[in-house]
């Protein structure tokens, strides 16, 4: 073979990749801009200033070192919950139960801490055990959803959401009963795990280690999904389950593994919420991170590494909520409206893929 014949296809695929990449960036960014426009119209109709809103959003999210830390603090669970949607999405599942795995994972961490802390087990052993418990319970919880999907054909979207309500009921059942801290009168909670068992901050900041865990996991899962046989099999299954079965891929194992990984991510988010923020498990765990994670993943096009910056963006919306509420006299649900608009516009933009000639491969006569 001559250099020319081997060179040409390589250049072609590079250009094709670049175009596909540009399309995957331009369309979601365009969707964000359109959402901002629609939201601005919404604000104008209410007699509020969109300029003020976006300025406050920037100031509350990134304006000061305090607000940046606040943003990153809130991004941590969003990264983990975004991953919890992205990994099943790669295998073709719409799994929306991260909220339940987060709640149950956080609760399990707090519950296992009760005997360990009162037994005086050193924190170096207790803390990994708590994290492991959270990941194992979260993983099993969502793994069941994957197994039901594969073995019984139960729709994973509905079942994972039902499991979320069951998870919250389980936590309430124990928190109001057997595991209730008698001192928590107004807000039933488990026993506080105690200062010694809390997760510390990344040195030099007020940000807890959950952010680092999220970033490391995002990179690890990116490698797993794009550079390993496992990830290849999962993506083939996501593309065409029948072809995957015909090729002899272990579809059932892959489905259960992907959902269990997702549950473990969400469970870990629950662990950090308990061990780095609240210090105990209570209704504060039901904060909607699991649901915002769905949107994060869609905007990142279910790409694990891209989940990180998108989660930080949504972290800033959450972090600036208080400032906007005070300065503009708007309810905290403003962020929900903005997120809802982004979500709807983003999914509508799915129809634009393949519509713009500039993003399509230019293969000339030699179509690949």
């Amino acid at each position, binding site marked *: 073979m001559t250099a020319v014949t081997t060179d040409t296809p390589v250049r072609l695929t590079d250009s094709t990749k670049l175009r596909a990449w540009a399309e995957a960036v331009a369309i979601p960014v365009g969707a964000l801009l359109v959402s901002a426009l629609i939201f601005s119209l919404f604000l104008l109709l209410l007699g509020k200033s969109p300029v003020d809103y976006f300025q406050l959003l920037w100031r509350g999210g990134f304006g000061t070192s305090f607000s940046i830390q606040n943003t990153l603090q809130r991004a941590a669970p969003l990264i983990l919950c975004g991953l919890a949607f992205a990994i099943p999405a790669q295998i073709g599942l*719409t799994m929306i139960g991260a909220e339940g795995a987060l709640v149950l994972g956080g609760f399990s961490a707090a519950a296992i801490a009760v005997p360990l802390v009162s037994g005086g087990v050193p924190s170096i052993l207790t803390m990994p055990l708590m994290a492991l418990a959270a990941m194992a319970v979260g993983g099993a919880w969502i793994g069941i959803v994957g197994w039901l999907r594969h073995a019984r054909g*139960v729709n994973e*979207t509905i079942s994972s959401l039902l499991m979320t*309500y*069951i998870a919250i009921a389980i936590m309430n*059942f124990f928190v109001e009963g057997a595991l209730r801290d008698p001192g928590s009168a107004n807000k039933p909670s488990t026993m506080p795990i105690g200062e010694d068992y809390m997760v510390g901050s990344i040195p030099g900041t007020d940000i807890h280690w959950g952010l680092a865990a999220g970033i490391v996991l995002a990179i690890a899962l990116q490698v797993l999904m794009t550079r390993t046989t496992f990830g290849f099999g999962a993506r083939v299954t996501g593309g065409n389950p029948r072809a995957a079965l015909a090729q002899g891929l272990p579809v059932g194992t892959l489905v259960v593994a992907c959902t269990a990984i997702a549950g473990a991510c969400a469970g870990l988010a629950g662990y950090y919420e308990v061990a780095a923020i609240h210090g105990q498990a209570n209704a504060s765990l039901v904060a909607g991170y699991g649901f915002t994670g769905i949107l994060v993943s869609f905007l990142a096009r279910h790409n694990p590494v891209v989940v990180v910056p998108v989660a930080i963006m949504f972290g800033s919306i959450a972090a600036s909520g208080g400032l906007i509420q005070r300065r503009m006299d708007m309810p905290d*649900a403003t962020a929900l409206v903005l997120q809802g608009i982004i979500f709807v516009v*983003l999914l509508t933009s*799915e129809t634009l893929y393949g519509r713009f000639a500039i993003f399509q491969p230019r293969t000339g006569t030699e179509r690949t």
Partner: protein
Amino acid sequence: MSDGILATILISMLGGAIRVSTPFMFVALGETLTEKSGRINLGLEGNLVLGAMVAYAVSYHTGNPWLGVLAAGVSGVFLGSMHGLICSLPRVNDIAVGIAMMSFGTGVAFFFGKPYIQPSAPRLEALPLGGWSDNAGLRQALDINPLFFVGILVALVMWWAFANSRWGLIVRMTGDSEPAARAMGVQPYQVRIASTAIGGFLAGVGGAFLSLSYPGSWNEGLSSGQGLMAVALVIFARWNPLRCIVAALLFGAAGAIGPALQSVGISQGYYFFNAAPYILTLFIMIASARSSSSAREAPGELSITK
């Protein structure tokens, strides 16, 4: 003695079933219509919450709860048409759009609903149908909201229309085979947009029941997944409006176990019994997912069963 307690529990479960089932029934009927046309709208939870808020607000301002019910339905048409139009674009996934509509509808409802959490709006009056009985519990159980009967009427009309009317045939044909519908000169997208919009109306009315009858006030924790359970309920009811009534009553009874036990002093495991409807739904889904009768009666174009 134990007979008395059992009777009390059963009567309050009957009352609870009738009260709790109404929103289930409306959402399930709306979803049945949408799914019969070949689309699935997971966003009816958003319609339910927005409908509850709008109904409460309109009833508060106008003093007429029935205007609230109508407004709730109109808000449902708005969300439903949005879903229907967006899903008519190529390459857009109806399940994902449903999740987005759920989050959009809930966000809008919470945003505009803040001022209505405190004030009390006029509620829908229940019909006292238990006057003949001496049993106070039974009389309370038979204070039935007129919307319950409206729901049954809607179910009967839908059941009749699917089988006997031109419109029913068009909806069923669109849901079973898009090529067949096109061949008959029917525009499948128009039928689906209309079915989703009308389905959204019914779900909005279901939301009005939540805020204007039972529990009977507006707050952000009003709906806890009833809209989604109703979607599962439709699969259980196998897309038959009459079976939707039975399924809704069953779900209502399951939801009433916790409060019924609490009324006789058994508060142990209250939260656990509250999870009963979700657990029941899950088991029903597991049992019915691969059943042959479910596969036979499912609309052919439905993405959830394909």
